């Protein structure tokens, strides 16, 4: 590949990234030379952009809105300031120390707050943010209190960064590098996993995403952005003061993100620059500025919830000519599953005396059954009998109060859903749970990539876009294409989940589960709402998978469908097994008929 080809490839692959940077540079240059925008506005915009990147990674991707980043911003700034003024430690080391402190603090805060409901998460992080502000105000013997701390020098990296130009270049370089890393992270499997969590944490976890760890690590990384931004801020200004880390600044940060466009990353460039420019626009009219910000904020929330960048992206999407894909019909995708199974051992899954209560109601009351290798098992019963609950117990969404669930010799009842998914059990949901923030193709890719285990090394690898991850991504994309072909859904690849008809969404969910290459698939009413032709297609699909060695547990109300497909059927009523056997026996079983028809 020649250099120009490489550049062209990079430019095409990362069009949004380069487009945003170039457009920004082109727009800001004349404004700077005409003295409309001062250099400090541009430099501080770059600094705040770093913070907003972190916020946007957290909210735009993972859907967690943190009000605590103002605190981490302060930690970064004050680490530089305090360490320099008290111990004459160089600002860059100060920034490093700030990052370390932030990692510890954000990890602790994350562990506390991430398990809370969204509004309480916001409150908890807000409390942290305010407490940090209060602490630096009150602890004046170290932080200088309301007097602030001054005299922080600009760092020296090879050359001294003491002019606005050199420091500006340094800050811009930092911002661009972080922008690049965040951008490639958000496009990677991690980005997909985060958006999956934002849409539906339970489904995400059932696809093998280690939700807690991924959320915590993302929170920590995002906090580090804020801390590093704070360090840059302190170095640039040469001084810190509690008022720069107050609620007002938090509002600015939020406004930067939402006005720019949450979830787009590059929207932050617009947001930061405009908000930083506001004082110069309003001059002495501070009240006007606050009022304007309020109106602005309301407008963004109520009228333009995706911000400017979101609106631009939508417009571009509409304008861009729809390009037809080369009609490559990928080969069938179904891997030979039997080969991956340990032989000899049977049954595959064993459910023994499982029980589960909800409040005072015993929803599952001692159910036992077994699924053998490569078997299709049906699970039927009247409404409210506890079928879906049972599926939740097997997939780890709920923990049983009693009894045990064994996959070969592995006890599942104490494992998390993502661990169970990794062991080779996948499921679909009664009401489809596709990830609304991902396209159809990306939904399946989440399955194809086996979720994400959220470890730091995985995050790092994805952010750096290593050759391995890129190859893996290309492979996953190709395989996904094959799955879509198998189900004749290729026309919907890039579509949003909302635009796909209800019935087909269930198929996508099925494909998503299959893509994770399980050897046991739990289906919860997969054909409800499909017409006969579609049902036949699904039936054929299931048979093909079955032929490859995949085992099934199928909950279905369409009795014909169940009777035809299943080798064995287990019937439950009032949380108890009332029959278990081949379809022909079940049809004739009096208890079953009574349970259904009364």
């Amino acid at each position, binding site marked *: 590949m020649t250099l120009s080809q490489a550049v062209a490839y990079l430019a095409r692959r990362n069009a949004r990234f380069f487009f945003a940077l170039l457009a920004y540079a082109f727009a800001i240059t004349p404004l700077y030379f005409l003295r409309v925008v001062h250099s400090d506005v541009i430099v501080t915009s770059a600094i705040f952009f770093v913070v907003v990147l972190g916020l946007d990674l957290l909210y735009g991707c993972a*859907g967690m*809105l943190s009000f605590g980043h103002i605190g981490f911003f302060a930690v970064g700034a004050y680490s530089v300031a305090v360490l320099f003024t008290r111990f004459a430690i160089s600002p860059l080391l100060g920034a490093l120390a700030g990052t370390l402190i932030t990692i510890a603090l954000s990890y602790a805060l994350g562990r*506390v*707050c991430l398990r*809370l*409901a*969204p*509004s*309480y998460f*916001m*409150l*908890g992080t*807000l*409390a*942290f943010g*305010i*407490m940090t502000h*209060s*602490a630096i*105000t*009150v602890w004046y013997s170290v932080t200088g209190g309301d007097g602030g701390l001054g005299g922080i020098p600009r760092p020296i990296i090879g050359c001294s960064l003491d002019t606005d130009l050199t420091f500006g270049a340094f800050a811009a370089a930092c911002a661009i590098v972080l922008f690049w890393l965040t951008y490639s992270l958000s496009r990677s499997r991690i980005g997909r996993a985060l958006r999956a969590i934002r849409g539906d944490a339970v489904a995400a976890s059932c696809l093998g995403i280690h939700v807690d760890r991924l959320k915590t690590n993302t929170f920590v990384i995002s906090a580090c952005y804020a801390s590093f931004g704070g360090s840059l801020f302190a170095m640039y200004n040469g001084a810190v003061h509690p008022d720069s880390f107050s*609620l*007002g600044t938090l*509002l600015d940060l*939020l406004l930067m993100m*939402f006005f720019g466009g949450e979830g787009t990353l590059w929207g932050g460039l617009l947001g930061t620059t405009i908000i930083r420019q506001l004082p110069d626009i309003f001059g002495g009219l*501070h*009240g*006007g*500025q*606050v*009022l*304007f*910000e*309020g*109106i602005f*904020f*309301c407008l*963004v*929330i*109520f009228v333009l*919830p995706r911000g400017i960048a979101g609106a631009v992206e939508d417009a571009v999407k509409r304008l861009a000519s729809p390009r037809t894909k080369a009609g490559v019909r990928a080969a069938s995708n179904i891997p030979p599953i039997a080969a991956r199974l340990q032989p000899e051992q049977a049954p595959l899954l064993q459910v023994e005396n499982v029980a589960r209560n909800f409040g005072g109601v015993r929803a599952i009351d001692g159910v036992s059954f077994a699924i053998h290798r490569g078997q299709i098992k049906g699970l039927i019963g009247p409404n409210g009998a506890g079928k879906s609950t049972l599926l939740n117990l097997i997939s780890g969404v709920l923990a049983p109060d009693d009894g045990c669930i064994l996959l070969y010799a592995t006890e599942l009842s104490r494992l998390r859903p993502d661990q169970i998914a990794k062991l080779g059990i996948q499921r679909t949901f009664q009401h489809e749970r596709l990830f609304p923030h991902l396209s159809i193709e990306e939904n399946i890719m989440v399955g194809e990539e086996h979720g994400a285990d959220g470890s730091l090394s995985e995050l790092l690898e994805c952010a750096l876009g290593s050759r391995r991850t890129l190859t893996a991504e290309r492979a996953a994309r190709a395989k996904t294409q094959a799955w879509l072909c198998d189900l004749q859904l290729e026309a919907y690849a890039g579509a949003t989940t909302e635009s796909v008809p209800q019935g087909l969404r269930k198929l996508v969910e099925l494909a998503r589960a299959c893509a994770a290459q399980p050897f046991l698939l739990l289906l919860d009413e997969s054909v409800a709402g499909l017409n006969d032709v579609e049902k036949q297609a699904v039936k054929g699909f299931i048979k093909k998978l079955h032929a490859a060695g995949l085992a099934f547990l199928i909950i279905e109300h369409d009795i014909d469908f169940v009777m035809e497909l299943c080798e064995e059927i287990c019937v439950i009523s009032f949380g108890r097994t009332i029959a278990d056997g081949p379809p022909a026996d079940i049809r004739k079983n009096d208890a079953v008929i009574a349970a259904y028809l009364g």
Partner: protein
Amino acid sequence: MPEFTQVIVAGLSQGAIYALLGLGFSIVFLATRILNLAQGSFALWGGFVFLSMVAGAKIPLAISFVIMLILSAALGALTQLIVSLRSKPWRPISPDMAVLSTLALLVFFEGAAFMIWGPDPQRGPALENGVFRLFGAIVPWQLVWMIVGALIIATGLQVFLRSTWSGRAMRACAQNPMMSSLLGINVRRIGVLAFALGAMIGATAGILVSPITWLDYQSGGTFALNGILAYLIGGEEDVAGPVVGGFLLGIVQSALLLLPGTSGGLLEQVVPMLALIIMLVFRPQGLLARRI
């Protein structure tokens, strides 16, 4: 002895602020599950409007109070309408969007307050100036009013929620909005009512606390936080929560002042937020509520 009683008095004073601000917050959250940050603005505006009427236009206290109640009810209702602009009966607004929109309104009200009343802090008109001595402690009369106000509002709310149709309907909406509408309850109207009521309580709180806390255009955020704090410590589902939680926090906070090496600033600013985080860690449902 006087030191001890003085700590109690200081604690009650701080607690009354928490309690008063928490009550309005709790009624809105109880009925609509919206974490209403704009609640702080209701207190701020109530205090400022009252100040302008009493000190500026020289309108008698009682009349000003009634006018202010009417105005704040309208403001609350308007807020509810704006916040639920994008929500549909079958698709309620998501919690983060709800918080963000009330935050946006908080900023908006802050800016408007700046434009009208300027940047300086101002002292609200006290219902009764002066102090008296009780067991050696100096007690401002305003404190008596604050405590009485908090207790009256709390009792009133309790009676309202337990023994009136609107109150019961409000509790029903909190539990299950869909079912409530099937019982014939107009869920939207109850939401508006809750915001109006919350705003009236908030404004009353603003009037009562502003002689102590003062008012500036940025006080709204502080007020909202104090309210949330009292509410969280007291626990959900109960009007008594903010009162108990508020007074408890206030007294604990002042008692810390007896320890050597503590300063007022530490207590005023760090301790409450620390308490909030501790609550979220160990007892997110609050002190009074049952563990669910």
